[in-house]
């Protein structure tokens, strides 16, 4: 069965979709990613769709699902590299990709994920400090 590879890089999972998707491939990716987040404890998922010439309602829904599922598993998702024509078409189609973060390219996407995770780390540290204060 065809699969899209998921690469692990530190706290992140990277997915580069290089081939045209049919529905089964997209649903497999969704399941694989959620399992990988669970297995690796990844904090962020970056999906590069710059090679995709179309994103239809099904693929859009899968991307949204991945975002929601990853969030439940405590990971942020960012979709990067969307072609302008794809963005125009998606909005006209009626999909706004609300559940996921987006960034222009991989570099900006990584930056966004790092910032998101840094914020979370700070919050955790604050909480720990607050707890320490209260115990003193």
């Amino acid at each position: 069965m065809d699969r899209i590879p998921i690469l692990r890089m530190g706290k992140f999972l990277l997915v580069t979709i290089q081939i045209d998707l049919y529905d089964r491939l997209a649903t497999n990716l969704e399941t694989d990613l959620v399992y990988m987040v669970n297995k690796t404890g990844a904090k962020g998922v970056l999906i590069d769709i710059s090679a995709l010439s179309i994103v239809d309602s099904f693929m859009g829904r899968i991307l949204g699902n991945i975002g929601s599922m990853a969030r439940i598993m405590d990971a942020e998702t960012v979709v990067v590299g969307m072609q302008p024509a794809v963005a125009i078409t998606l909005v006209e189609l009626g999909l706004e990709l609300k559940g996921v973060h987006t960034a222009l390219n991989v570099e900006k996407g990584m930056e966004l994920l790092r910032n998101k995770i840094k914020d979370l780390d700070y919050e955790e540290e604050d909480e720990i400090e607050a707890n320490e204060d209260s115990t003193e």
Partner: protein
Amino acid sequence: MRIVLNKDTMKIEKEQDVVPFRNRVKEYAVKIGMSVVNQTKLITAASELVRNMLKYANGGITVIEVISEGRNSGIRLTFVDKGPGIKDIALAMKDGFSTGKSLGLGLPGAKRLVNEFEIKSSVGEGTTVSIIKWKNG
């Protein structure tokens, strides 16, 4: 008057057939010089309609035609299936309505992406959807 310049038929029987079908549509769209945005809209609409065909009718026949009208040229795609048919077309064309588990954007979304959209269906006999995207439109 509309003249058909080229006609191509493709059978859609399984999910994997969708990819070569989209590529074929793209080939023709590129050949007539359609802009990337219009190409993308056409292929996305085609993708929605072909999915419907697979999901509700287990596949069918697609016809890709290059048409011209005066100075304008375009692509006409026709999707013919022998599935269960659509009982209430007006309802099926509404945003957010789906008898399946999808978002219900397929038919209305596809309509928004093309210049002309025609749907005929009779219960028990099947559905035919025909769309046109003009090169300049």
